[in-house]
């Protein structure tokens, strides 16, 4: 195996950085989109209008039963067929990730909402709020506080899953690492580096959230 060659990483840093940027960008959009649409989906899922709740339930069950990589393929190959023109790999990856993650965030948010005692909504509604106002001002702030650790876990998984986009020709961080590793024939250095980088990013992410969490704590 010989000694570790750190230079191979320094030399390829700009190339690796490009891959990392793509991973970051994709994860950031998918996290924001997933939480946004997950929230809407959760509200639909809890709707008292049965057909609406069923459609939301169907959506969630469907996306939770297929692998993400399949969704990425589908969107990449099917959407152009439907639209009649290509959408490009990045856009299709964004759509695939957002649709997929919406299902997971929906369930996290729904569980958080349902862990808030029902009497809290009653108190809001009794003071003249609509159900949505009570949700927005009373239930959601409590639910999100409880959900923070699970949301963080889901978001870290999502970030790691961005490595799947190599199947639609995109070059994320992990794909860049593999490319460099095989070109330079320096597997050990690059895969150690990749592990360290993933660990550092996810660790920093969870520290940041805990920091925010601490700031909110009374």
């Amino acid at each position, binding site marked *: 195996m010989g000694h570790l060659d750190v230079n191979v990483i320094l030399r390829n840093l700009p190339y690796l950085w490009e891959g990392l940027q793509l991973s970051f960008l994709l994860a950031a959009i998918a996290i924001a989109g997933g939480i946004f649409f997950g929230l809407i989906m959760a509200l639909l899922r809890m709707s008292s209008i049965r057909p609406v709740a069923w459609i939301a339930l169907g959506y969630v069950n469907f996306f939770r039963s297929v692998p993400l990589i399949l969704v990425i393929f589908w969107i990449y190959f099917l959407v152009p067929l439907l639209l009649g023109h290509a959408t490009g790999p990045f856009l299709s990856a964004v759509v695939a990730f957002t649709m997929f993650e919406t299902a997971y965030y929906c369930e996290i948010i729904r569980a958080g909402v349902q862990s808030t*005692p029902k*009497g*809290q909504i*009653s*108190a*809001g*509604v*009794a*003071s*003249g*709020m*609509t159900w949505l*106002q009570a949700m927005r*001002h*009373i239930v959601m*702030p*409590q639910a999100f*506080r409880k959900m923070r650790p699970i949301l963080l876990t889901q978001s870290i998984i999502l970030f790691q899953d961005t490595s799947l986009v190599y199947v639609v020709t995109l070059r994320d961080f992990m794909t860049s690492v593999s490319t460099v590793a095989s070109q330079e024939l320096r597997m050990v250095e690059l895969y150690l580096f990749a592990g360290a980088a993933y660990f550092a990013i996810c660790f920093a992410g969870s520290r940041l959230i805990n920091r925010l969490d601490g700031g909110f704590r*009374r």
Partner: protein
Amino acid sequence: MIEIRDVSKWYGSFQVLKSCSVSVARGEVVVVCGPSGSGKSTLIKGVNGLEPCDEGEIVVDGLNVGVKADLRVLRTRVGMVFQNFELYPHLNVLDNICLAPMVVLKRKREEAEARARTLLGRVGLTDHALKFPAQLSGGQQQRVAIARSLAMDPVVMLFDEPTSALDPEMIKEVLDVMSDLARDGMTMIVVTHEMGFARRVADRIIFMDAGEIVEVRPPEAFFTAPESERARAFLSKILEH
């Protein structure tokens, strides 16, 4: 002020309320009592539509609970205090009180806060404005909940067993606040087992059993000479300890 006419309600095939009728005048204090499961909570929650009734109608201050447009307005004028306080744990005392006035009545923050501080003074909690519910005793929490309801300037206050989750030494401070409120002329419906309070403060007692309003009488008459066998049985049970 409050008209309850022939109200019935079912949970599946189980009838919780059986053709209940009673009216409450402006400024009147009515205590509702009766055995557990007799429908007291269901009746009082009917008054602000938290538990919609299946038959009959309830009209509060000219607003019909069964009419959707009326109901929103009605709820802004009818305050409710719950057994478990239901303060919002993520907000401090001041924000708990200001939330509904700001969200529902669109009051400005300063205006809402000024009113909140006045009300906190009234329930004896001036120094606790910035505390969170978890930092308060049960009695203090329930007094905040009362102040929170009053912040909407209600014309009617509903209380569903406001002291039954409290340790005995805290019951009095809450009942005192309620007595003050009654003295100031608030129209109140109070579900409670505190018979001392009922005797002192209530204008009338409603006795319920198995979904029926069995007796509606002034406290003296009710406590000294209940008309029905059911009320006698209930009173002997509740007064014996």
